[in-house]
């Protein structure tokens, strides 16, 4: 779950990282409470590229700020409309840096990434320095090590190291996948200040992070309607543009089935991974979700039961056939408990096939 800038900065502040004295406004009229001008108005959307899109503006006085806040509240950035603007006094910037902590897959642990050049295009920068955190055991010298790798010296080594120490605290305390300050600036008084922040909380950790209870739904602005509904009931659906609805279990098999639909000349409308160990009710909800798209002409169900009990799936299919007798389904159902599942399917009058290629070509033929 990616946090908005002001939410990320609140975590930074609580951990002792300096941030500009900001104010979050939810409507344009609130700008008349701003005390310090000139100020920066920043749209609080969850997508990148907000500056280029016109979501960051400077204002010299209240009237100027009012007009600009009105514009920003109306401005969609990659489809995302802001519900808040962060107002901060304009700061003096002596130097801009970049620093983040994230898990590196290949290293199998967290790393510190930083650059002496902060700014927007950090991903394409070749000035990035990396300090791995051995066995995930952080110690302050690692922050200082990074500081010297960036060419800092003297008091700056301690100041930068202190920022990394505190960033590490945020990273571990809130089960983050990513904590990032970009830019980290050195202001007129030589203080290190987080001018922008990005924090991603691991979604699997939300159940043990009560601070973020109930916040997920308003942080999923990049999902389509069905994808959002699916996510809310634990179903991973991805929308495409064809006419075959695909329901599988397991990400690899789901992707392989989708690839195979394209291979046989068909086009998926969407595909859904029902996950492992799904119950009858869960599968029934999944069927409803896949079929709810108007473009779906045929449902292709491919289930290989390991932790999933084929009988649960068969009962869901039977239930679905009862309420939607007109729906066209091609079903392949094999694995744990498949014999008992076959009996349920036979009784329900649902045809099945054992061969994946056959199932896919049949679905493609029906879809036309």
């Amino acid at each position: 779950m990616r946090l908005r800038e002001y939410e990320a900065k609140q975590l930074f502040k609580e951990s002792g990282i300096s941030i500009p004295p900001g104010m979050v406004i939810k409507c344009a009229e609130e700008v008349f409470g701003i005390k310090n001008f000139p100020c920066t108005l920043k749209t609080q959307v969850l997508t990148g590229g907000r500056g280029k899109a016109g979501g960051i503006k400077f204002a010299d006085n209240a009237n100027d700020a009012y007009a600009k806040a009105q514009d920003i509240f109306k401005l969609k950035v990659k489809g995302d409309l802001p519900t808040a603007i962060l107002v901060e006094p304009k700061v003096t910037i002596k130097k801009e840096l970049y620093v983040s902590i994230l898990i590196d897959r290949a290293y199998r642990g967290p790393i510190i990434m930083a650059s002496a050049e902060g700014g927007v295009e950090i991903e394409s920068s070749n000035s990035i320095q990396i300090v791995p955190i051995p066995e995930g055991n952080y110690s302050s010298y690692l922050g200082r090590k990074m500081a010297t790798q960036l060419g800092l010296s003297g008091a700056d080594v301690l100041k930068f190291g202190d920022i990394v120490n505190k960033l590490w605290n945020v990273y571990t305390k809130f089960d983050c996948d990513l904590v990032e300050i970009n830019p980290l600036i050195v202001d007129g008084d030589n203080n290190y200040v987080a001018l922008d922040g990005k924090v991603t909380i691991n979604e699997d950790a939300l159940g043990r992070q009560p601070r973020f209870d109930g916040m997920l739904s308003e942080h999923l602005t990049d999902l389509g309607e069905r994808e959002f509904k699916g996510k809310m009931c634990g179903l991973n659906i991805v929308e495409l543009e064809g006419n075959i609805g695909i329901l599988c279990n397991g990400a690899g098999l789901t992707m392989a089935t989708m690839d195979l639909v394209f291979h046989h000349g068909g086009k998926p409308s969407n595909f859904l991974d029902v996950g492992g160990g799904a119950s009858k009710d869960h599968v029934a909800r999944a069927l409803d979700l896949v079929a709810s798209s108007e473009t779906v002409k045929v449902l292709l169900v491919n289930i290989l039961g390991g932790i999933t009990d084929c009988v649960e799936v068969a009962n869901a299919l039977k239930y679905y056939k009862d309420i939607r007798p007109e729906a066209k389904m091609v079903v392949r159902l094999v694995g744990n408990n498949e014999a008992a599942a076959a009996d349920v399917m036979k009784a329900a009058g649902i045809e099945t096939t054992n061969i994946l290629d056959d199932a896919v070509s049949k679905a493609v033929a029906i879809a036309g």
Partner: protein
Amino acid sequence: MSVLINKDTKVIVQGITGGMGKTHAALMQKYGTKIVGGVTPGKGGQEINGVPVFDSVTEAKQKTGANCSVIFVPPYLALDAALEAIDAEIPLISVITEGMVPQDAVKLHARAKAKGVLVNGPNCPGIITPGECLIGIHPGSIYMPGRIGLISRSGTLTYEIGLGLKQAGIGISTAVGIGGDPIIGIDQIKSLELFEADKDTDLIILVGEIGGTAEEDAAEYIKAKIKKPVIGYIAGRTAPPGKRMGHAGAIISGNKGTAESKTKAFEAAGVQVAKTPSEIIELVKKRIAVAA
């Protein structure tokens, strides 16, 4: 022979009194796995499916001689359970649990590495040596014994290929479901190393998927160290970029982790790449025919 597990492997199930643990302990027993006990703290002294339940892994190991543990505990308890098994020096641990927090997985694998313990998973189907031993959640009846080594990031796709091979009358030595999470223990390279050394494996199937660079790294390893033929497959060739495909690990970010890059790396390492699961079986058949 086989890799990692065989008919003599003595297995305990951590979380044996929970729903999943109980169900799959019974399925593993039915398959023929030597389940010698279970562990659920606070429930020691009970019996499940005819095997004793212990309060701790250390006790279970002392009383049963277990040399493998399969973990079925809920995600937030999985790290503790795995650390307990590592502390008890169980040499092979399979973490079936899905939804483990990545920072927990980092701690788990760091400790396992320090203690020289092999960890399979998390979020994986486990390992099967057909006809001898099954640990985890593979549907046993889908595989037959033979001489093909199977490595896969995806559980159900492993079953798909096991089934396809069986339908073609081809068996496997061992299938290692390495798991789809970004941070895993036994990976493609470790599995390749084990199969290369196994005298009863003739050919290796490596099933990858989009996301990360594990396949590219495996390709480098194959080029340098693997003499046995390898057949590869990549799931997600048609996946839309930027979307998470179920597994936390399966996502194309920017130009990294694409099927094209992985296919190229495989081909450069002399790995034949199948476009569909059934083509894997065709390629295996051809290889076997050539060898014969």
